C-alpha cells in the first residue's frame, strides 16, 4: 500500500516486526509446506529490509507471538501508544500503555505517519477486590468480567483494571487479563503502571538505562490515574465470587463456572433465546446440563493469552506424574522462543513430554489455525486461547471450550472437562 503511494515508513526505529500467525510450530524448515504462508514470510522479510524495520525472524532467538515479544524486549513501556494489526494488541495495556488492534489500512496510516485517527473513548474502571480462591487464575478473572459485562458491554470504552487483585498480580497475569479486553467489546484495556511494572522492565534490551531509566520511572509513575479521579463508569467485582470459569458457547461471554449448569433456554430473556440455541446446537450441548464430564479430543495450551513462562511453570507443577488420556491430542506451544528456552532450561519441557504433550515451537498455533495446527471435524478442544467462535480453530464444526492453563491440563489427563481443583488438589498458586 505504501509502495503504491510512494510513501516511506515515517519512524522505522519505532517500528518492529515478527512472525506468529502463519508459522508452523512443528516443522519449521523453509520453504514451508504451505506456499501461501511461505510467500507471506518472504514478503515480510523483504519489506522489513527495504524499510529498515527491526524484524525478529525465526533465527533471531527472539521470535514469538508479537504480544509476547514486545514486553520481553522491553519495547512495551508505560505511557506509550502501541498499534498492531491484531486485536489482541490490548495485551500491552498491562504496562500502562494504550494499545490498539487495528486493520490493514490503519497499519498503513501508522507506518506512513506514526499517527492514527480515532475517536475519544470513555473509561470504565473495573475493580476486583479481595482474595482469589485456590485454582482461580487471571484467566478466570477476565472470563468472569466478560461474562458479567457481556461481549458488547465494552463498546465505546477503554477498560481500566484495578483493585487489590490487580495490585498483587504479576505482569504476566495482567497481560492475560488485558489481552481479552477486546473480547468484552472494549477498544483497549490497561492497568496503571507501578513497581511491578518497573521491576519487569528493568534491564530488558529496549528499556532505558542509567539516568534515562530514573527519569523514565518518574514519568511512568506520574501517568497513573490519580486516586479519586472521574470515570465514565465504575464496576466492582468481588474476587471471592470468581470460580474456575469455562465457556460453553460460541463467544467468550457464554461462560459458566465449572460447577454451574449451562443456561436453560426457556428461562433466558426473549432476546437471548436464538443465540443460546445457536450456541447449544453448534456445541452439541443441552440446556441445563453440566459442562463437567464432557469428553474432549484436543488440549491446546498456548496463545497470546496464556503461553508465558509462569503458565508453563504452574501447569508443570500439577502435571508432573500424570499422563494425558490416550484419546486426547495434547499440544503445548510456548508463546515465544525465549519462553521455550526458559522452559527447557528449567526442564519443564520434559514434564510436558513425559505426560504426553507435544512440545512445539513458538507461534499462534491452534488459536486461529492459520498454520497447520487445526481441529478436525467436530472435535472438542479444551483451550487456553481467547476465542471460541465457530470455526475459530480451523474446522467449521470444531468446538472450543476456553479455560485457564491448569484447567486445560486437568482436561487433558482426565479426557474430559474437569475441575482442576479436584483433579490436582490445586492449592493457591501464582499464575496467569
Amino acid at each position: 500500500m505504501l509502495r503504491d503511494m510512494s510513501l516511506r515508513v515515517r519512524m522505522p526505529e519505532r517500528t518492529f516486526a515478527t512472525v506468529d500467525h502463519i508459522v508452523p510450530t512443528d516443522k519449521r524448515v523453509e520453504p514451508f509446506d504451505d506456499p501461501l504462508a511461505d510467500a507471506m514470510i518472504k514478503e515480510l522479510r523483504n519489506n522489513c529490509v527495504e524499510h529498515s524495520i527491526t524484524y525478529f525472524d525465526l533465527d533471531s532467538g527472539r521470535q514469538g507471538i508479537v504480544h509476547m515479544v514486545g514486553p520481553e524486549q522491553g519495547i512495551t513501556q508505560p505511557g506509550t501508544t502501541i498499534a498492531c494489526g491484531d486485536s489482541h494488541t490490548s495485551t500491552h495495556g498491562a504496562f500502562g500503555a494504550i494499545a490498539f488492534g487495528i486493520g490493514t489500512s490503519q497499519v498503513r496510516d501508522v507506518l506512513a505517519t506514526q499517527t492514527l485517527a480515532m475517536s475519544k473513548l470513555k473509561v470504565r474502571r473495573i475493580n476486583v477486590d479481595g482474595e482469589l480462591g485456590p485454582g482461580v487464575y487471571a484467566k478466570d478473572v477476565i472470563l468472569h468480567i466478560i461474562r458479567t459485562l457481556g461481549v458488547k458491554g465494552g463498546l465505546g470504552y477503554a477498560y481500566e483494571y484495578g483493585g487489590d487483585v490487580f495490585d498483587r498480580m504479576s505482569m504476566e497475569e495482567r497481560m492475560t487479563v488485558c489481552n481479552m479486553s477486546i473480547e468484552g467489546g472494549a477498544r483497549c484495556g490497561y492497568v496503571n503502571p507501578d513497581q511491578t511494572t518497573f521491576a519487569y522492565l528493568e534491564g530488558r534490551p529496549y528499556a532505558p538505562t542509567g539516568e534515562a531509566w530514573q527519569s523514565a520511572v518518574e514519568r511512568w509513575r506520574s501517568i497513573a490515574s490519580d486516586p479519586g479521579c472521574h470515570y465514565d463508569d465504575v464496576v466492582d467485582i468481588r474476587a471471592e465470587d470468581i470460580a474456575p470459569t469455562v465457556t460453553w458457547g460460541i463467544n467468550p461471554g457464554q461462560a459458566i463456572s465449572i460447577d454451574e449448569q449451562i443456561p436453560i433456554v426457556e428461562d433466558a430473556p426473549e432476546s437471548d433465546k436464538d443465540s443460546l440455541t445457536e450456541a447449544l446446537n453448534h456445541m452439541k450441548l443441552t440446556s441445563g446440563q453440566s459442562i463437567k464430564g464432557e469428553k474432549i479430543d484436543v488440549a491446546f495450551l498456548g496463545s497470546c493469552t496464556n503461553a508465558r513462562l509462569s503458565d508453563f511453570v504452574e501447569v508443570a507443577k500439577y502435571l508432573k506424574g500424570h499422563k494425558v488420556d490416550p484419546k486426547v491430542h495434547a499440544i503445548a506451544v510456548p508463546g515465544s522462543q525465549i519462553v521455550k528456552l526458559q522452559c527447557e532450561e528449567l526442564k519443564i519441557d520434559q514434564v510436558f513430554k513425559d505426560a504426553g504433550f507435544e512440545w512445539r515451537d513458538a507461534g499462534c498455533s491452534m488459536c486461529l489455525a492459520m498454520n497447520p495446527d487445526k481441529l478436525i471435524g467436530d472435535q472438542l478442544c479444551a483451550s487456553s486461547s481467547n476465542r471460541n467462535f465457530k470455526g475459530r480453530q480451523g474446522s467449521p464444526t470444531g468446538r472450543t471450550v476456553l479455560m485457564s492453563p491448569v484447567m486445560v491440563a486437568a482436561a487433558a489427563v482426565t479426557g474430559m472437562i474437569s475441575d482442576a481443583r479436584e483433579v490436582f488438589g490445586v492449592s493457591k498458586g501464582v499464575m496467569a
Partner: protein
Amino acid sequence: MALEAIAGVRGKGVYVPGDDIDTDRIIPARFMKCVTFEGLGEYLFYDVCHHEDGSAKAHPLNDERYAGATILLTGSNFGSGSSREHAPQALYRHGFRAVIAESFAEIFFGNSITLGMPCVTAEKGAIAEIASLLEKDPDLVIEIDIAKGVIAVADKHFEAKLPASAQTALLRGRWDPLAELLEGEEAITTTAARLPYLAGK
C-alpha cells in the same frame, strides 16, 4: 487525495439474522493467507454458506432472490473479534456498499469507514420491519441517506445513526484518513520532539 463523497447508498438488501456475528465467521482465518485483498469476496461467510464438501447451504446469501444485494442488514455487535480488515474487504469485494445493524464492534466499524463502506445503526424493530418487507419483496430498493440519517424503504422511513465524525468523513470524501494524517506532518514532528521516549531523553 480527493475521494468521492458518499452521501448515500441505494440498492437491494439482504437480511442475515444474528447477534455477535464475529469476523472469523465473516471471513475464516484460513482464507487470510494472502498478501493482497483481491479475491476475498468469494470466501465471504464461507463456512456458514457452505457444507464441508463445498456445496451450498441454505443461507440468505445463497438465496437467488437476494442476488445482487448491496446493503446487508443484521443484528447487534456485528464484526466482533479479530481486527482483520479482511472482513469488511470481503463484504466490499462481494458487492456490499453499506451495512445496517443494531450495533457494530469498533474495529470493524473503523475498518469499514476507511474503505468507504458506511455502517449505520438502526433500532431492532426497524431492522425487523425492513427484513420483513424484503421477505415479501426482495427487489425493494433501500436508500440510506447519510446526511439526513434516514433509511427509506418503499414508503417507510427509519432512523439511521452514525457517529458525527464518520458522517462528516463520508460526506466530505475524507473517509480514508491518510491524506489528513499526512497533512499533519508538522504537528507530528513537533509532538515527536516533545515526547521524551521519541526524543531519546
